[in-house]
């Protein structure tokens, strides 16, 4: 019988979280790493997301995590070796409610304390700056120039290429069937490509996070919800920022290629994996967006798809090491904003695995322990 293949660390999920983690582990010298992806790279949430990179969050730790991520995105091309169309075109956050606007004032104060340069704009200032936006009903807006966007799929490919160069392994079209636990400790995984021994398993499976976690009997309290998104034909580039509204329930940006990519949330969506699309979404979004962005009226929609938000109870990610099963880590429940924090999370989690503690960013507040009988501070800035 041939010898059992062994990796120190097996990562489940070939999206942005798994590949970022794999990249930082390899950079720290841990090259005995393998990523297992049941389909193709970025086939889950990453390849379906809009690619926004935002630092304007309502809680202080999230702002810090996002700011670290932006530092790493700024260096992505040099560090990782791939042009991911990263552009710091800013995030224009539009508020259509007095209550939310009040909260924004507080958020901006906190964000500025963290060293983030955020502007507060009146509706008049918004229409002066962006004459193509109809500001009817707008209460206020905030703008942060160093926010931006990038091409998520290229980021995954960039990380994956770097992992391969450094000696890590990536298995695509390979599904993890079981996680082998003995004496309360991870010892291997069983996959469609055979059995692999390992010391550590990291769950970075996005939409499938709780199903995967059930393999080791740990409930991560996550649920996946469908979110739909559409893209238009390309126009000349004139819209550098991501425009987003929580109270207005939409987001939109123009890609480097010129297309407008946009989406909204749906309160009626039921939990569960569903990759279908509805025309209802197109109608609702079209109606709303044409009012706010009248130039869209004659622009044509060319593609519409859906992806999953892997939601946690407080709309913040769940990241850490399991106390119940030794060697089992998870980085899940991103609630729709996994791409933008992935570099900082990948770095922090790699440090946690290699050194037992984080060096650059504190992510202890994201541990699942926060749900044990505490009052949760829900992240409000989510579409």
């Amino acid at each position, binding site marked *: 019988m041939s010898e059992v293949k062994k990796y120190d660390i097996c990562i489940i999920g070939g999206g942005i979280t798994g590949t970022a983690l794999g990249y930082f582990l390899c950079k720290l010298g841990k090259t005995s790493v393998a990523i297992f992806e049941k*389909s*193709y*790279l*970025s*086939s889950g949430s990453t*390849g379906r997301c809009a690619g926004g990179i935002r630092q304007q969050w309502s809680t202080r730790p999230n702002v810090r995590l996002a700011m670290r991520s932006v530092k790493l995105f700024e260096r992505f091309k040099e560090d990782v070796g791939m042009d991911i169309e990263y552009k710091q075109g800013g995030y224009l956050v539009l508020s259509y409610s007095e209550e939310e606007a009040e909260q924004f004032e507080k958020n901006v104060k906190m964000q500025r304390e963290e060293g983030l340069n955020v502007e507060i704009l009146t509706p008049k200032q918004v229409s002066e700056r962006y004459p193509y936006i109809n500001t009817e009903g707008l209460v206020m807006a905030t703008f942060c120039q160093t926010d931006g966007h990038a091409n998520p*799929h*290229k980021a995954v*490919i960039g990380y994956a*290429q770097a992992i*391969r160069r450094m000696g890590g392994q990536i298995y*695509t079209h390979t599904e993890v069937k079981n996680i082998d636990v003995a004496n309360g400790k991870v010892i291997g995984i069983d996959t469609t490509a055979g059995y692999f021994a390992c010391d550590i398993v990291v769950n970075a499976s996005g939409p499938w996070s709780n199903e995967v976690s059930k393999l080791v009997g740990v409930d991560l309290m996550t649920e996946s919800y469908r979110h739909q998104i559409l893209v*238009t*034909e390309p126009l000349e580039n004139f819209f550098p920022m991501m425009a987003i509204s929580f109270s207005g329930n939409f987001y939109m940006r123009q890609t480097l*290629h010129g297309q407008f990519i946009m989406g909204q949330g749906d309160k009626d969506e039921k939990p569960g*994996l569903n*990759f*279908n*699309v*509805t*025309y*209802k979404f*197109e*109608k*609702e979004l*079209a*109606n709303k*967006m*044409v009012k706010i962005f009248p130039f*869209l*009226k*004659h*622009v*044509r*929609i*060319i*593609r*519409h*798809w859906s992806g999953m938000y892997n939601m946690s109870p407080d709309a913040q990610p769940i990241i850490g090491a399991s106390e119940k099963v030794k060697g089992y880590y998870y980085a899940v429940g991103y609630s729709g904003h996994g791409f933008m924090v992935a570099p900082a999370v990948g770095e922090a989690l790699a440090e946690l695995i290699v050194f037992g503690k984080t060096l650059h960013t504190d992510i202890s507040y994201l541990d699942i322990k926060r749900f044990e009988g505490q009052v949760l501070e829900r992240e409000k800035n989510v579409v």
Partner: protein
Amino acid sequence: MVRHVKALVVGSGPAGLTGAIAIAESVGDGKDVVIIDEGIEPGGQLPKQTHKFFGHEGFYASVRGFEIGNLLVKKVKSLGVEIIQQATVTGIYEDVITVYDRVNNIVNEYLADYLLIATGATEKFLAFKNNTLPGVYGAGAVQTLMNQYKVLPGQSFLIVGAGNIGLIVAYQLVQAGAEVKAIVEASSRVGGYAVHANKVKRLGIPILLRHTILEAIGKDKVRGAVVAEIDERFKPIPGTEKEFVVDAICLAVGLQPNVELVAQTGAKLVYIPELGGYVPLRDENMRTTVHNVFVAGDLAGIEEATTAMIEGYIAGYNIAQELTGKSFKEKIEKMKKELEEFRRGPFSKKVRDGLKKMGIVFPEGGYMEEQQIDKGPLGKLRAVIECPQAIPCNPCETSCPTGAINVGGNINGIPQIDYTKCIGCGVCVMKCPGLAIFMIQEKDEYSLVGIPYELLPIPSNGTKVKLLDREGKDVADGEVDHVALNNKGKTHIVFLKVPKGFEDVVRSFRILAKSEEFICRCEEITKEDIERVIDMGITDYEELRRVLRIGMGPCGGKTCRTLTLQILSEKTGRPVSEIELGAYRPPTMPTPFEAVVKSVLTENSEVSENIPGGVKDE
């Protein structure tokens, strides 16, 4: 304060520079000579000339114009001659010569014992509708922008005039990456050298004889041009109008001597159309009717750079003779002999006729006119010369290491090659300023044709190309066998594999443009693009789609999906049936927001529970 110099040279083109060299060398001190020049750098038109010059090696034949300029300027400076740039001689008054120094914004006064005026020529313009639109340029301006300031003034050109300047600019524009749609020429034949014309024709640029420009199209800038055929009286023939979509029109319709200054000296002007119009009357020593005023170069009669240099020397030695009282007769006679040799050919007929009207006689003829018919022994790697006109040029002869090429007793002779001596080294191909020498070798399965090549990128071995004939027409498919690089002279030889029987047909090639191989037409993605990404290890259709944007255009992948799957199959060895097809996403045709908004108004926006729509694409 008035500055007094022994010799003042106006203009630092080839004539002014050689004149200054002759004076400074002979007088033994360069500080007695000052050159005043309008340009930002010395050399006149030379810095704008990127092509190799004709002539013989004594006058820098086969050296590129800007390099000749550098050599002459270096020589002038080493002799201690001062060149004052960005300064214009604004008047030759009774009392002083005024020089407007544009750098310091001051008019300086000069006195000179001798004046050598070498102010060259100005371009003629052409009257046609909308000729003031931005985008209408003289050829000199195009060359200045493109070759001196490194700015390409347009992407797509129409050139008016098929003299040497029009032909050369067309070639330089292609080298710089622009497109030349056509060259129109009012006369019934090409005025420039046949070798220059052949160079542009085989690039596929049509030369429309008996055509002229009628109109520039555009409101704020040139967006096109209307040309038409003309009759014997140069009148446009109705119904023959053609439109070209261009963003620049380049006029190369001739030059006229720049006589303003020489006229102010009191020198007599005469009207001689063969020399370009009004020219200063002068003797064979280049002296005008004013004793201490000499002229040289295009001012003395429109010609070309080599003769300008020779005239500069003749004028310079004559000035030196008078300044020093010594005789430089021997040097002067040698230069006159050179001029005589250069001017024997058919292209100098106009100049000879013009000078005759001044009483200066140059002999003609005395060179080999016969074209070689023998193309050499089959199977041997050898040079084939296609230089059909008697032009004053001989670098092929002087560069041949075995002495196989001979232009005869006079430099205007048509070269003949002795195939018993040709060793197929290709040196002449790289040297020929007219790019008129090719290499040929017949092989068993195919033949090799070597093409002189001065464009970028230099194709790599194995590159698939379209083979073109002398008119730039596609005649067959071929590939690059190998490239003989010439890093010094920059004329490389691209050896093409051509089908048997095409040795005498193929004289150019075209690297297949991307547009000919698009797989995804919406996003303009080629097979090569797809293969490159597959080679990176990206072997899923959905991944290819996201990296390359293939199938992400308005058509939604209607034509490219299957083609891409086939390429994936070829590259990975997996059958198409085993490759994941990827998702089909709505809408299947681009749908305006407006149309979607309207449907909200007329339809129930509830999601139907009955239609099992949607595609599983996980």
